[in-house]
């Protein structure tokens, strides 16, 4: 029998939050690093605006706001690689996970939705405040500001869906690191983390918008910047939701296939 109750999800989410809250010094140090990178990227983009007033629909204030929001979200959506599932597959602990009356994907989703608010509050908000004090940032409309957290939450689910999927490569590959690295590179670039997608050449922008990665970063930031008005706003949220469901679905298929393939080496 499988246990599936919102109450259990809530308890798991609380543990996700607490696990990261247990290391406040590491969090502050990380927020400091995010701040330093925010400064550098903001200045690099501002140098671009010495020659241009508009790049792909972004003015200088949009671009600088983008940089600080991206720094605020990098840990929230956990862009730099997540290997927990792969490690559990590698060392065999996944066998225990699968024997529990609790679905591993649902477990990790709940855990991650507990982790994300912690990282948003403590790794995201402080660098953003520093950025807002030093640079002229865009002020969102109340509606966009209200929709922003919804879009971030969906971004976290899309991100977890993707992370779960590339981690499950460990069912088939003894050395899964190559897959993980490739996944990080592709998601960093096509999410708009390295540079806003608005800066991409046209053909690359088309590619980026056809992939799920924009839903992890570019979409929530564009919501904040007010780039989607009227019906476009529910439209992009629906797009994020579709990608979230699609990636979670693929992850489920991978988990089921992996479960049949799994051979535990004993121990």
């Amino acid at each position, binding site marked *: 029998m499988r246990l599936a109750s919102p109450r259990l999800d809530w308890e798991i989410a609380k543990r996700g939050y607490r696990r990261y809250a247990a290391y406040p*010094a590491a969090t502050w*140090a990380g927020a*400091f690093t995010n701040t330093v*990178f925010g*400064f550098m990227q903001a200045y690099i983009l*501002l140098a671009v605006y010495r*020659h241009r007033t508009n790049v792909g629909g972004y003015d200088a204030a949009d671009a600088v706001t983008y940089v600080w929001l991206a720094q605020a979200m990098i840990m929230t959506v956990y862009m730099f690689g997540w290997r927990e599932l792969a490690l559990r597959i590698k060392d065999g602990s996944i066998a225990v996970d699968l024997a529990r009356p609790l679905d591993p994907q649902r477990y990790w989703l709940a855990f991650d939705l507990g982790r994300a608010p912690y990282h948003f509050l403590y790794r995201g908000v402080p660098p953003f405040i520093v950025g807002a004090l030093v640079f002229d940032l865009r002020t969102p409309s109340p509606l966009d500001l209200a929709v922003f957290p919804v879009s971030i939450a969906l971004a976290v689910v899309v991100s977890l869906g993707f992370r779960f999927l590339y981690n499950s490569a460990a069912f088939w590959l003894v050395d899964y*690191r190559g897959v993980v690295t490739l996944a990080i590179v592709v998601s960093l670039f096509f999410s708009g983390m390295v*540079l806003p997608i608005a800066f991409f*050449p046209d053909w690359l922008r088309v590619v980026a918008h056809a992939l799920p990665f924009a839903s992890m970063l570019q979409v929530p930031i564009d919501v904040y910047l007010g780039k989607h008005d009227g019906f476009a706003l529910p439209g992009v949220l629906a797009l994020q939701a579709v990608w979230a469901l699609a990636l979670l679905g693929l992850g489920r298929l991978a988990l089921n296939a992996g479960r049949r393939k799994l051979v535990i080496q004993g121990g």
Partner: protein
Amino acid sequence: MADALLLYRRLIAAQVRSQLQYRASFALDIAGTTLITFIDFLAILVIFHNVPSLGSWSVHEVAFLYATSCIAFAFTDLVIGHLDEFPQLIRQGSFDVLLVRPRGTLFQVIASDLALRRLGKALQGAVVLAYALGGLDVSWTAGRVAMLALMIPAGAIVYGSVWVAGACIAFWTTEGGEVTNAFTYGGNFLTQYPIDIYGRWARRLLAYVVPMAFVAYFPALYVLDKPDPLGLPRVLQFLSPLVAVVAAALAGLIWRAAVRRYRSAGG
């Protein structure tokens, strides 16, 4: 000194042999490192898709900064990148073991690893350097060739000094790896772009106090025969080797002072 080098070679040879045991994994690791560092250069290319120059710097000139700082950083990362795990040594109390051995502690920490996969970054930097020099019309003189040959080891030593000094934070906090990242990886990111685009305070702190401007910016002005957009004295363009020596000496002193006040956590 010769004795120390011999010992270093022996210890490292053992490391290298073990890393080369799994050829496929090793090749994948190198490819992964090359790929993940390549996104930073991709970002530069995308920026120059939007503008003809960044400040007064052309794409090939920025590529030159990028490549030289990348190669220098790759060598530092290769030789002492494992200092990132140094706080664990302190936390677990394993640093005590180093204290009773008849060698310098810093030497032992450095000689404990050499992650060959980091050569991927140097490889990528070399390719970009070829691209930069291919597009630039450098009037080569003996002085410029010598500077190009010197700036890379000097840059590597500057990075290394910052890394060692940063690692010392762990003696006080038993953590702090992340703060160091802001200066090591952050410093590497900073030097990939011309420092005249950064705001005055960021420039003062990161370029002169942490002497990152001497890694690529100043020597590059000389090699490329560019007027300094900041209008600083020309003598700075020749100081990188001296700055490297001073930085290394300071880092050594900081390390020594830190070891002296070290109190074991037990373990």
